């Protein structure tokens, strides 16, 4: 069978269901959310279509592009789409349209039609259109646009097989009949120009009509090209005259505005002809929910309540499975010690791998609950509402309301959050958001908080502490934003215009994918990166060995009489050994830096390894505190040994430091790319470390004062 590759560009306005559609026709799991600007990077997905009759198989590559309201670039992610469409290679465009907002979506379709490429228009969300009593005559619309039109629903999978068939069919066509009809006075000029070219047998690589339109639209690329050609001399006066006519007719001098009006009229006309509304049941529900959720006075308290509830759940609901997982790993550690005897290998397995990885894995339930909360925020449509509520407040702090979206993403993971900042148009807004994103505690820090909150505060308070930590980080971010706005990134204010999607119930499938995907990622990381880190830390805390020291203590222990003395000698030996290990050497070196914060060298080392990733902090603590102390005690969970070895003020200082210093290596790499330079990473590192240290210092001393 013949294999034919097809490359398809998925284009459309934001939030029309492009990514959902791709997920439904292939088995991809692209990120989907109910707000504008979910996809900010192009992503390729492969699927197949088998044409039984033609006996050939199509390998279809679909390129998911960020949603764009128009091709005149506005934000960074819209530029990604525009650049792809203009400069890269693809066979056809799928223009996804939200059937419930036909007119507005057709504005973009008009721009796409002008590109003169093969195209299919997909009327997505047909299920919603039916519910809202909207009827679209797709045959009629297809006649108007000159390209195939098909109804689909990513939710019910309606029309998806047909879409694949259509892709193959359109691919086989020689040329597109795409057309957009302008007002008569423009059509006249187009005709005029086309005649001019054909009379001179001008050879163009795009259809003459498109050439004429692009010339009239004053498309710089085409001007540059024509400028090189001999025909230019003759063309110039003809073109000038054509434009004069158009100016005269419209009374306007701005060609872009004139064509905008044309598109608008075209979209409106097409909608009038192809669409009818039977009833207006549309927005009642959304309106009712909005009356409460974006209430001027109640809106923000309601939002804060949701966040508080989420953190309570994260802590309490996560606690149970956490204990089971922890117990399982402890049991495995004991078992391996029994099986392997006291040896370097058993220590590596039990104290290194199992304590390190186990400490991280036991927080899986907390992480999943948090991501579930974020998924609800993203998929219901509430996200845009909160951005709406907070814009006024954010604006006072020099932030943009839309910054809220990357900030919330940052509660999950800082890496995608840095990328989500692309939806901010002004550079200063974007830079400020990038700089303060690290203050939003990412989910990888949850294990540390849960560990410390559980160890140092009562069970009932722990959820509140978690909430306070997050709110505290966010408020600090606001203050930092204000300072950055007044000093480093002055810049102009950017307008705030944002679409508010209607409320949608997230499907079970979507929720399942979020839980499954996040759990898989987390365990993957625990099984690879954290595993390696744990081994490394185990090694660095056990070597180099010092046989003399051990022999010396062994003698002392043998000579001692009381059990107590033996134990204390044993403990002394362990801590001596650790201090002389590689890790101990590093720890001692950086000890003066952390000493004013009340932290011992172990905590300092844990923070340092946390530069790689925040999960490593927990595994470092797991390894360091499982090795050192309490060898004879049977029940020595990490929480208890922390409680025994760390004072409350130092613990608070530790939490504050973790809240504020730089997230991880992966995020640093992305930050450099998004901010546009290594030097910004230098600034970020200095800023976060300075803030973390000073606030940690203040926290340590004030807690000490209170006690």
């Amino acid at each position: 069978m013949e294999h034919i590759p097809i490359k398809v560009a998925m284009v459309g306005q934001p939030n029309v269901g492009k990514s959902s559609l791709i997920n439904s026709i292939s088995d991809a799991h692209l990120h989907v959310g109910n707000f504008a600007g979910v996809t900010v990077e192009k992503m390729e997905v492969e699927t197949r279509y088998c044409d039984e009759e033609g006996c050939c198989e199509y390998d279809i590559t679909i390129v998911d592009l960020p949603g764009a309201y128009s091709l005149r670039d506005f934000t960074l992610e819209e530029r990604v789409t525009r650049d792809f469409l203009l400069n890269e290679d693809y066979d056809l465009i799928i223009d996804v349209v939200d059937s419930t907002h036909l007119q507005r979506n057709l504005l973009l379709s008009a721009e796409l039609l002008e590109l003169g490429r093969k195209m299919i228009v997909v009327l997505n969300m047909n299920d919603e259109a039916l519910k809202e009593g909207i009827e679209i005559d797709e045959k009629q619309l297809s006649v108007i646009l000159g390209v195939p039109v098909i109804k689909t629903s990513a939710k019910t999978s309606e029309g998806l097989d047909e879409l694949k068939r259509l892709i193959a069919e359109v691919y086989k066509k020689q040329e597109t009949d795409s057309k957009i009809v302008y007002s008569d006075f423009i059509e006249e000029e187009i005709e005029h120009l086309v005649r001019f070219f054909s009379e001179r047998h001008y050879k163009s690589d795009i259809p003459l009509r498109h050439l004429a339109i692009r010339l009239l639209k004053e498309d710089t690329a085409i001007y540059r090209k024509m400028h090189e050609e001999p025909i230019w001399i003759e063309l110039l006066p003809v073109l000038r005259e054509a434009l004069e006519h158009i100016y005269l007719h419209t009374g306007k001098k701005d060609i872009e505005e004139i064509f905008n009006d044309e598109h608008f009229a075209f979209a409106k006309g097409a909608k009038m002809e192809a669409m009818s509304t039977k009833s207006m049941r549309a927005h009642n529900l959304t309106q009712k929910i909005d009356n409460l959720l974006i209430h001027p006075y109640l809106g923000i308290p309601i939002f804060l309540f949701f966040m508080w509830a989420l953190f309570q759940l994260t802590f309490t609901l996560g606690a149970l499975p956490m204990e089971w997982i922890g117990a399982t790993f402890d049991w495995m550690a004991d078992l391996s010690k029994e099986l392997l005897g006291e040896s370097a290998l058993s220590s590596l397995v039990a104290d290194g791998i199992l304590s390190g990885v186990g400490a991280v894995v036991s927080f899986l339930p907390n992480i999943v609950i948090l991501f579930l909360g974020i998924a609800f925020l993203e998929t219901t449509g509430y996200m845009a509402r909160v951005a709406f509520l907070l814009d006024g407040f954010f604006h006072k702090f020099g932030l943009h309301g839309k910054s809220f979206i990357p900030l919330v993403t940052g509660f999950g993971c800082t890496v995608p959050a840095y990328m989500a900042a692309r939806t901010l148009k002004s550079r200063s807004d974007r830079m400020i958001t990038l700089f303060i994103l690290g203050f939003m505690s990412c989910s990888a820090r949850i294990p540390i908080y849960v560990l410390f909150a559980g160890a140092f505060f009562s069970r009932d308070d722990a959820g509140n502490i978690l909430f306070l930590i997050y709110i505290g980080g966010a408020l600090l971010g606001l203050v930092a934003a204000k300072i950055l706005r007044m000093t480093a990134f002055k810049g102009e204010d950017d307008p705030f215009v944002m679409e508010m999607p209607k409320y949608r119930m997230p499907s079970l499938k979507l929720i399942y994918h979020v839980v499954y995907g996040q759990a898989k990622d987390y365990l993957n990381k625990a099984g690879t990166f954290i595993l390696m880190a744990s081994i490394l830390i185990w090694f660095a805390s056990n070597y180099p060995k010092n046989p003399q020291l051990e022999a010396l203590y062994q003698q002392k222990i043998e000579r001692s009489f009381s059990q107590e003395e033996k134990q204390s000698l044993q403990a002394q030996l362990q801590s001596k050994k650790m201090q002389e290990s590689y890790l101990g050497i590093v720890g001692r070196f950086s000890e003066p830096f952390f000493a004013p914060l009340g932290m011992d060298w172990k905590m300092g080392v844990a923070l340092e390894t946390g530069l790689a990733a925040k999960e490593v902090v927990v595994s470092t603590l797991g390894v360091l505190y499982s090795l050192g102390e309490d060898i004879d005690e049977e029940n020595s969970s990490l929480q208890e040994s922390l409680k025994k070895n760390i004072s409350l003020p130092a613990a608070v200082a530790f939490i504050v430091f973790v809240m504020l210093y730089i997230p991880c290596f992966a995020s640093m790499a992305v930050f450099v790319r998004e901010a546009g330079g290594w030097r910004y990473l230098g600034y970020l590192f200095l800023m976060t470390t300075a803030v973390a240290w000073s606030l940690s210092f203040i926290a340590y001393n004030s807690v000490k004062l209170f006690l």
Partner: protein
Amino acid sequence: MKLTELKQGEEAVIVNIDANSELRNRLLSFGLAAGERLSVKGHSLAKQTIEIEIDGTLIALRREEADKIEVKRP
């Protein structure tokens, strides 16, 4: 009159949008153009941001932007 002068629930027709071309283009993409009908659906504290509906789409605008949109009662 200005869009910001409308009360919640009121309907109006856009007369003119007095903004730079970038913002005007963006508003146009949302369906906001002279002659179109809109209604005010809600606002945040002290009318800092306003929610309007136009052709079935809900749009949030900051006060400064809303001030640039001139409307008249139908």
